[in-house]
């Protein structure tokens, strides 16, 4: 472990995520697969952390375990100072709805709902009143620059637009952390960069913490911190000098709108 890594593992008051000695073993009866082998890390509020590594190294498993989507076999996982292992399924679900947002490679929008309804959904299940949910969903969509597409269903949108709605949905509950598993994996390079820029601008404007799992180095190097994994362990954890400068949010919105008007093909 390097000195730099050691400093990153030290717990501070501003820690958003704290993982200590996390193990995850998949037991298929005849075979036991150790996906995580004692991973420890701390993520501070406002960090953009990219987790990289070869296929099967355990990066998605780590994201699932840290976000409470999956249980850990051993070790401690704390989010915002709360040990999520202590929660019942119901408490954990409510906690996720309140504190976390998710963005996935395949967008995972509900096809029967419009973009606006998809964004409203986590608000409504968190107990927010319908009127406020609508207003907050619209605001969230506005932040990703797709208000005009709010009434459309996912099948009518391009891949980039779907991912923006997924981000809007992740932001709607005003979480403190957004987990993104291969957020640009299904996008072309131009759209890919737009999504990254959007997330970075949200990070800067709202001090949102982002954790990206990615294969792509060009994505990873735009994060403020890069964790490299191999065989279920953290191989390297280092801060990057600075994220690439991002255009103003308004500009991003305009450029997206212009492309749409030029007839961008849906994926």
């Amino acid at each position, binding site marked *: 472990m390097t000195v730099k890594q050691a400093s990153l593992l030290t717990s501070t008051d501003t820690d958003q995520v704290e993982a200590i*000695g996390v*193990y995850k*073993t*998949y*037991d*298929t*009866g005849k075979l036991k697969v150790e996906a995580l082998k004692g991973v420890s890390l701390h993520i501070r509020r406002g960090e953009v952390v990219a987790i990289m590594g070869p296929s099967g190294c355990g990066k*998605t498993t780590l994201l*699932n375990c840290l*976000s409470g*989507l*999956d249980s*850990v*076999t*051993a*070790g*401690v996982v704390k989010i915002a100072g709360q*040990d999520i*292992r*202590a*929660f*019942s*399924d*119901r*408490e954990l*679900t*409510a906690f*996720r*709805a*309140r504190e976390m*947002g*998710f963005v*996935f490679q*395949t967008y*995972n929008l*509900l*096809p*029967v*709902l419009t973009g606006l*309804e998809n964004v*409203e*959904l*986590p608000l*409504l*299940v*968190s107990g927010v009143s*319908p009127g406020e949910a609508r207003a907050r969903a619209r605001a969230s969509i506005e932040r990703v620059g797709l208000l005009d597409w709010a009434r459309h269903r996912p099948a009518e949108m391009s891949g980039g637009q779907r991912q923006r709605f997924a981000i809007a*949905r*992740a932001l709607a*509950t005003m979480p403190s952390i957004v987990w993104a598993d291969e957020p640009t994996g299904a996008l072309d390079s131009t759209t890919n960069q737009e999504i990254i820029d959007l997330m970075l601008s949200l990070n800067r404007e709202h001090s949102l913490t982002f954790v990206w799992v990615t294969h792509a180095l060009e994505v990873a190097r735009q994060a403020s911190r890069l964790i490299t994994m191999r065989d279920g362990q953290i191989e390297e954890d280092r801060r990057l000098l600075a994220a690439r400068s991002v255009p103003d949010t308004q500009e991003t919105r305009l450029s997206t709108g212009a492309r749409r008007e030029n007839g961008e093909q849906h994926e």
Partner: protein
Amino acid sequence: MNNTLFGWSPTMFALLLAALTGGILLVVLGLGASNTLIWRMGLRNVARRRGQTLMMLIGLILAATFITASFGLQDSFNQSMVVDRLMKMGNVDEAVSGTFTQAQVNEALAHLQHMPQVQAATGIVYLPRAARIFSERTALSNADQYVYGVPPSFDQVYGPLTDNQGRRRHFADLGPRDVFVSSTVARDEDVRAGDRLQFVFEEQSNEALTVTVRAVLATDLAVTDGELEFDGSYPEIILPLSTVLSLSAQTHFLAPVPNVICVKNVGRGGLDDTGPNGTRGQPVLDYLAQFFHAAPDARGFFPTYFDSVILHPLKPQIAESQGNFSPLDNKSDFVASPAARQFSLMLPVFTALLVGAGLLLQALLCLLLAAERRAELGMSRAIGLQRFHLVQALLVEGCGYAVIASSLGLLLGVGVVALELAVLSRVPAAGTLSSHIALHLAVSWQGLLASWCVSALAMLAVVFITATWISRTNIVSAIRDLDDPLPARASFSMLIRSLVTAPRDTANEPLPETFARRLTRQSAIIGLLLWESFIRGPLCMLAGVLLFTLTARQDETWMQQLSVALLIGGGGLLLSWLLTLLRVPDALAGRLGLSLIGLGWLVYGIWTGKNLLLIMFASDVSVLGAHAYVDASPPEVLFSLLLPLVGTVLLVMSNVDLLGRLLAFLLRHVRSLAPVSRTGLAYPLTFRFRNGVALALLSLIIFLVILVVANNLSSIQQSSIQTTTGNFQLEIDGVELDALDPAHTTNLNAPLLATPRTLRQEIALVTRMRFAYDPHHARPIRLSLPGNPMYTSTKSPGPFVVDDTFLSNTTMPLFVRARGYGSDRQVWDTVRDRAGYAVLQYIGNIGLPTIQGFAPFMASVPQTGDPHAPYRRVTVIGLLPSNAYWGTMFFSEKTEASIGATPYDRFTFYYFRLQPGVSVSQAASTLNNELGLNRLGIALNSLVQDTLDAYTASLTLFLASYLAMGLLFGAFSISVITSRAVVERRQQIGMLRALGFSRGLVQRSFLLEASFVITLSLLAGSLLAWWLAYQITSQAAQTFPFPLGTVVLLLAGSYLVAVLCTAPPARRASRVPPAEALRYE
């Protein structure tokens, strides 16, 4: 819907159901209103996959249709019964019957006619089964006619009377030698208006009265509760009261006094006459009860007896009193035809099974939809939707399906009832006591409401259960579309330890937990402990023991059967677990355990359900001896049918891999199928539960269809005249002959025996049988079998002495013959030629041999009819089939002489074999004309059962068609499973395509997979049905005429329908674009 259920009136029951359904729908709607997005999600999902929604709706509509049809058919039966009873009783509101004096009748009538509640009252004579008629036109004679003697004033009591042409008739118009006949006489005895009949009382020896039929009435009459509540059809001759009284006076055995007083209350007729709350009827009943010291007939005897005075409160009590009326129950049909028994006992069970199949299909479709939306469900959970949100969304969707399906099913159900009634109305009569009630459609609003609610509730329950199951999906696996992790089997010690100790992780570090988590964790562990105890056997066995103990003193035998089934299941599971503890490989332990359970259930199911299966399927219930009329409840019937089948399915599914491997090995040698020989069979072997469910469903339908069809068609073949009488078609009944004046019959023997010569165009053979002795007080025949049982002959009270003509010419196959006899003919010849030999009819349950080659045994026969006569022994060398017309012992005149019996001349029966091509009516007419039998009052009985066979065939077709609708469920369920396989194996399909599988090959692979399950289902269902039908038939006969052609056609049709249903998903699989499918990987 006129009966009561759980003590509630139909209206209360329907309203309670409506309240429950409405409440549940309101709760779902209320929850939806509180979260409109989930509401919208649910509703939009209904229209999302139109094909699947349509399939789900078809399944649910069919289920709702069956539910509605079940309620509606019973409603219609009940209402038809009420209409029929009201028609039969006319405007008669109350009656009293008994043996009265003329003074009593006069006084009662005088009082009644002065009562303000009474409009009219009169006395009539009613004599059930009292007369015989002979039609001069048809030359047919009919006994057991019901006689009514009615005065002209009966018109005022009975009300409007119409004939079968719709014309008004009046009792007052009857002349001294005129009669009306009831509709049954016209239908069953071929009597028409204008016919001249010779009418004679059964016990009257004087000359017959020649009467003219003035009209055939539109209905039968009935003014007594025995006749009304039996709901039968009665051959009635209605004469003027004066004629009947004068005949009574001549006979000296009937008092010339009316024996029934009929009353019509003030009112417009029908149910109106009883007045509000019985204000008009009750005073009349009170008076009759007080005057005659009469009470209603609590025993419900039929026909009405006149030894005591009986009060008949016809309206509204008798008119509307019923349980669940069936036009077949308690009628001769029930005894004579297996189809009638199946209709009565099994139709509710068939309905329940079909409804269950529809709901199972719904569950499979829900799981298919969940498989398709798996990633969405996972994502929904990830972003914060609780499990109950998912359940709620699916319930809203389910509400949509339930409301649409229940409403459409209601309409279709009423249509199906109309169709069923139309078919049932066309079923020919099975016997003289059959019910001939005109069936018409009448579904009450209570029935409709209850059907709708039951359908909707059942659907919502299924959605709720499957939604709860679906909501437990693993979030990570769902989002990433991975296989769900296999549940690890926890040890008991670990579970108990984790229940009582604080949780620790694998590093033995304590885990923090909130109260809610501790509660859910401990609940989950307790649930897991119970589940693990159950699937390892001990808890399952304990449940069986507890259930057995609790139900040991109850009449519900099916509960005890269930408890034994649980014990067998627990035993198999326990064995499997113990074997794994002994390090036996899991697969082998599982195979042994499940095979044991399957075999146990199969054997126990057949053993315990044997009597019931025999009652439902035996061609002749007399074979069953004392157990013939068991009143089986629907759960008992269901259990006796399901347990053997579920056992078979379990046996097949636990060993299906062996069959699969064999098939795969064989297919490898077929070039076009070699590439799919593994892929097409690997999946059915992997996903055994879902394939087992589909297999159980399809095989159940096939099992029932084949069992009903094979058994009943075989029964029809067995009831052929060749088998039942040895090819003799006409009979002169010796008991009826004996009742006639001996002066008329003494010289009849010779001309009857000469008919093959004198009437050679019509008669081929005549044979004579007689009782060996006066059977009335004789000692019973005894058999030298274990326990020396008494032989209680089923149809005749003593042994028959048969002549050599019969013994030489009978074609009747023996049920079994004794060792040393190579053919049935050899047995008959021995009985004919050697003294001391006999055959007797097989009767179940008294220890008679059932296999060929039994050791001849002795039977002790009383020498005479004297109750103290000594026994003489004869050797029994053959057993007649149980459906033989004669239910007794046969021996020859030589044997009669050898045992020292004096020939007994009374009760001589004659049987005629007709020339080929001669009809029964033609031969009967010739015999009557040539020998003047009708003048002598001698009736000729036809032994041909064509009508009964047609009846059985029609009802069998009805039952098979009803069940065949269930085939759709089976076929759909396999289609749904194939669809789910396509959804789940999208990536694998892409991989196969990438590996070089053509579209055709992918399609073939899926079709092979479905064909494997379909073939197994057809084999399991049909083989079990064949075996059971064989076992049942072998109770009555050694030969089993299996209707191979019909069964092969049924199986081929079923296979085709099922494969056609799997073709669309297989085609869909072949069109999966490989690149897109693989991109998910």
